[in-house]
Every structure is written in C-alpha cells, then in structure tokens.
C-alpha cells in the first residue's frame, strides 16, 4: 500500500466501521453464546434428529428465560444433515468457519459424527456427539465427547443379568444392518469376560419377514440357555413373535435399540417376559425416589411430552445431556474460551443426566458406567424394572 492512497481510503474505512459499530452496538453488550448443532432432523435417521432438535430448542429457550449463561443468552445455530455424512461435514465446517459457534452439540449418527471429527479436532472446537458407537471416544480424541451409552455397555449389562440368572450358553440372532452388526461384534468381544459361551450365531436380512428358520435352528442347538437379539427396527418384533410361535421356552433378551412402548405394542403378547437394557428415561415414573436420576428424567419427560404431545425418547435425552454438559462446563470455566470449556467438560464429575451419572476423565470422554443402564422386563404389557 502506497502512502498516497491512505488518505483516500481512510474516510471510507472509518465510515464502514462506524456503520458496523452502529449495527453491532446493541447486541455487542451481551453477545449471545452460540451453540452449534448439525442433526439428522429429516431422512432415515429422523427418529434421532427430530427429538434432538426439539430438545435443544426447548431447553435453550428455558435457559434463556431464566437468565442465560454467564449473563449472556444462548443462541442455537442448527442445520439438518438428513443423515448424510457428507452434508454433516459441510455443516460442521460452516458452524466453525462462518457461524463461529462456541461449542458444537450434535451428530445424530455415528457416520455424521465421524465425518465432523477431523474438522473439530483441527479447529480445536469442543464437540459433544449424540451418537452411539464406541469408535467416537475410543481412542480418546482431545476435543470430542459423547453422551449416549455404547452398544458394548448394552451387551455387558445383558451378560451381567445372565450371570445373575446362571445362564451361560447363549444364542445370538441379529440383523445385517449397521446397528445390529456393530452390537453383535461388541457382544462377541465381551462375552468371554462374563464367561458367556456363544453357541449359535444366526442372522437375518434387513427386510426379512420371517425368522422361524433361524429360531428353529437355535431351538435345536444343544445346551442353549438364552437368546440375545441385538437388533433394531422391525426385526426384533418379528423375532419376538416367531419366538412365541415356536414356543422356544428360553429367556429372550432384546437390545436397547427397541427400548420403547412401541415394541410392546407391535409384538403384543409375545413380548411378555422379554428383557432388555434401557436408559432410566423409559421408566422415569417407576424409579424409586432414592434414585439420583429420578428428578432429572421425570422433569425432562414432563417438559418434552407436555410441549410436543409425543412420547419421550432416549435420543432427545442425549441432546439434553449434551447441552447441559456444555452449559455446566461454561459456567465452571467462567468463560466461553474453547480450551477452557474443553478442559471443563473433561473435568465433569457427578453430572446427573437422562443417560446416567457422568464422570469424565482424560481417558474417558463418555463418562458412563453400567449403572446407566437398567434391566427391564415386560410384565403385564408394560416395562418394569428388574430388581
């Protein structure tokens, strides 16, 4: 830049900055804390993203009504990735570079989360994922945290219950979808730790309409004592119905993937006696008053169901936990400085959320243990807590 151009540019620059200041001034005094989110609100994973989006909106509104965080309001910047990992990556980039958010809560699926991980790591952006797979926090990534339980924990919870019932020879039947495959692999991996022997391992296709063949094989397998169906979608319901049709008189375990009232409705009488691991949210009102989670889950359930007139889901709960972990960390850090917030999230101890009691550490960016899951059994057409 030569010196003779400066005088001509200078007034222009001044004018622009004066204008900017005039616009910015009212908001600058208490600029909002920007919470970024990319969720699968539509598309095949909409059952995850839809309640997550609603939860974030509801609770950000609530937090703002009660004075915000650090004296500042929260502002949600949310994008719909429609379950597409490529879109998720683009939106994560936009949140970091254009929207300049302070923290990202989101990534409804493991695929969309993993697509954003390299970006948040490079940008040093605190990121709380709402997806399930173990790979998100194992190995630990400095800036990445997650709120949901993993499928490995679900397997472990089932195996603990089997140990209690002295069942050790187990048959697996699972689908070929992503959820089913991942959980089946985790179950096979941790089974030896609980002295569980997998004596049969059957699969079915995603659109299959009948599993009596696989179940007949399992029924005729020598020495089998229980059946576990790590599954998702309509498969587990058909398995449960066929199970009753064939009168397989062995304990049947389902996964947290079908932990909902709907499973009982679809399976009818056949679901009687089925057990599965589930988050406390599903049986909020049934929890004993002494349960530390009771207050949180009942309050979340009533808020959500009261506002949206639809059944609460654990997925929305994951978003609640993600938002609260971020907000608490900002309060403890006393700032929105990204490094300080990250350290504060990692130092979370004894946070009671809908998913369980969270104790983070530098080696554990999920912070949940097996107590986060409850073993439930269908009795008289409703989920009941197995004591």
């Amino acid at each position, binding site marked *: 830049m030569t010196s003779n151009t400066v005088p001509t540019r200078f007034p222009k620059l001044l004018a622009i900055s004066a204008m900017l200041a005039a616009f910015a001034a009212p908001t600058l005094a208490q600029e909002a804390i920007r919470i970024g989110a990319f969720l699968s609100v539509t598309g095949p994973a*909409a*059952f995850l993203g839809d309640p997550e989006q609603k939860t974030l909106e509801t609770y950000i509104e609530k937090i703002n009504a009660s004075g915000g965080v650090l004296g500042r309001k929260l502002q949600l910047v949310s994008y719909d990735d429609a379950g597409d990992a490529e879109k998720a990556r683009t939106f994560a980039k936009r949140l970091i570079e254009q929207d300049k958010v302070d923290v990202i809560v989101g990534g409804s699926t493991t695929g969309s989360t993993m697509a954003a991980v390299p970006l948040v790591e490079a940008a040093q952006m605190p990121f709380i994922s709402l997806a399930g797979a173990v790979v998100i926090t194992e190995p630990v990534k400095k800036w990445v945290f997650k709120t949901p339980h993993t499928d490995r924990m679900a397997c472990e919870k089932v195996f603990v219950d089997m140990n209690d019932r002295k069942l050790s020879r187990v048959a697996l039947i699972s689908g*070929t979808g992503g959820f089913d495959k991942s959980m089946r692999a985790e179950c096979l991996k941790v089974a030896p730790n609980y002295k569980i022997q997998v004596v049969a391992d*059957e*699969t*079915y*296709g*995603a*659109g299959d*309409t*009948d599993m*009596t*063949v*696989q179940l*007949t*094989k399992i029924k*005729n397998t020598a020495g089998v004592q229980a059946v576990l169906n790590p599954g998702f*979608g*309509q498969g587990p*319901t*058909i398995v449960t*119905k066929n199970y*009753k*049709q*064939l*009168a397989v008189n062995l304990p049947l375990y389902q996964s947290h993937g079908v932990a909902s009232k*709907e499973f009982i*409705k*679809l399976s*009818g*009488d*056949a679901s009687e006696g089925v057990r599965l691991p589930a988050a406390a949210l599903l049986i909020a009102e049934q929890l004993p008053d002494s349960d530390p989670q009771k207050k949180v889950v009942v309050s979340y359930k009533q808020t959500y169901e009261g506002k949206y007139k639809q059944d609460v889901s654990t997925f929305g709960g994951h978003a609640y936990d993600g938002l609260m972990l971020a907000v608490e960390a900002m309060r403890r850090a006393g700032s929105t400085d990204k490094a300080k917030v990250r350290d504060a999230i990692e130092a979370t101890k004894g946070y009671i959320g809908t998913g369980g009691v969270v104790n983070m550490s530098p080696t554990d960016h999920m912070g949940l243990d097996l107590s986060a899951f409850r073993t439930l059994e269908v009795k008289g057409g409703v989920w009941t807590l197995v004591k």
Partner: protein
Amino acid sequence: MSAQLTQFLLTGLTIGAIYALVALGFAIIYNASHVINFAQGEFVMIGGMATESLIQLGLPLVPAIALAVAAAVLVGMALERFAIEPARGASATTLIIITIGASILLRGLAILVWDKKLHTVPSFSGDTPIQIGQATLLPQSLWVMGITLVIVLLLGWFFGRTLIGKAVLATSHNPVAAQLCGINVRFVLFLSFGLSAGLGAVAGILIAPITLTSWDVGVMLGLKGFAAAILGGLGSGVGAVVGGLVLGIAESLGAGYVSSAYKDAIAFIIILAVLFFMPSGLFGKKSPDRV
C-alpha cells in the same frame, strides 16, 4: 430332523405365498402393457398402512380392509391416468422408469400421510400357533395361503372365461389388432392397474399381522415379488405363484441348512440358474419370432 424340515417348509410356503401375491400384481400389468410396474410394492404398503389407520379410527376389520383395498385401487387407477396415460406411445422402458418415479413419490406421500413408524394389523383369527407334528404354523399363514389360492383361481377364471379378461389378453398380444377388433385398449390398461393395485393391497393386508408394515415395506417385498415373477415367467399367473413358492422355500431351506447369512444369495443364484437355462422363466411363453 424331519420336524426341522417340516418347519422350514411351512415357513417357506408362507413367505412364498406372500411373494406369489406380489408377483401376480406384476404379471397382470405386464400382461396388459408389457410394463413392469415397480410401484407394485407401494400398493402392498398402502393396503397394510391404510387398514391399520382405519382400524385405529375405530372401524371393524372387514370394512377397514374393503376401504383400504378401494383406496389402493384408486391410487393405482390415478397412477395410470396421470402418469402412464399421458406418456402413451412411449417405449416400455420409459414407462418402467415412470413407475420407479411413482414408487418414490408414493413412499414420500406415505411418510406425510402416516409416519415413519412401524405398524401392525391384528391377526384375523388369533395368534395361537397350530401344531403340525413338531412344527408350528400361525393361523394367519393359512389365511395368506388360502386367499392366494382363491385369487389365483379367480384370476384364471377372469382371464380365461370372461370377455373383459380375454380383451386384456388380446391387448397384451397385439394392442393395434385388439383396438381394430373394438377393444378399448386405454380402458384395459386403466383396469389392469386398478386390478393389480387391489391385489397388491390384499397382499399387504394379509401379511401385515405377520411382518408388520411401514412406509418402506414395499421396497423389499416388491423386489422379491419381481424376482418371483421373473422366475415363474413374466406374465404367467401360474408362473408367478410357482415362482413365489420356489423362491420362499429356497430361501428358507438355504437359511436352515446352509447359512442364514447367504439366504438371499442362495435364492438369487437359483433364479440366475433358471434364467440361464430357461430365459423366459419356468412358465413363460417362448416369445415367438415375428415374421
């Protein structure tokens, strides 16, 4: 061992009857227009979903079924009138692509009208399994097989004995000649879309208590039904039924005796083998060379 085999065969017959019903729908439209209607699976979905929501509204089972079938017939006729008819004269390939588009549209509409959840229709006569030797069968399976049989007989009578059925067959052989004989070719096409939509809906309703139903239930069933129709010979009613049953039993025996992971592969290998040696399917007419 034989108890196990009986169970596999019963399962195969039930699944096979379902495939057969879907395959019949393909056969009817193919007969009338040489179009393979890839929206056939969506008719199956509409039947099941509409019945479920009508039952939720408080209607008894029978009127709900009747209304659901009527709704599907209307959708089928609308599809013909507004999507196929305007493209009249286009090649069969173009029309097939239109049906693929229609199937995507219908699935999208189903999400809007209903939702993305799974639904179920109560069994027609309870869920108490029937014991056959050491194997078991659900009463609903008997409904599926029985109604499939009735429909096959009715269709045989319709195409072989009634004037209108013969008009459909004539149109399929040579539309121009049929028109010259005074057959309303456009009406025949309209009718066959309505008929096959109704058939698809019946299939969807019969199987909903066994397999559940949802907005995308038609995708896989449509594909399997298509495979069954090809196996039996496109356009042949008997072929569709035999193709469906062979496919169902092959899948079930494959899963039972080889591996459940390769179940679909086994079924498709059989189809490939049949088509390799009998390119027009088990019961397909050898296409005569035109002079």
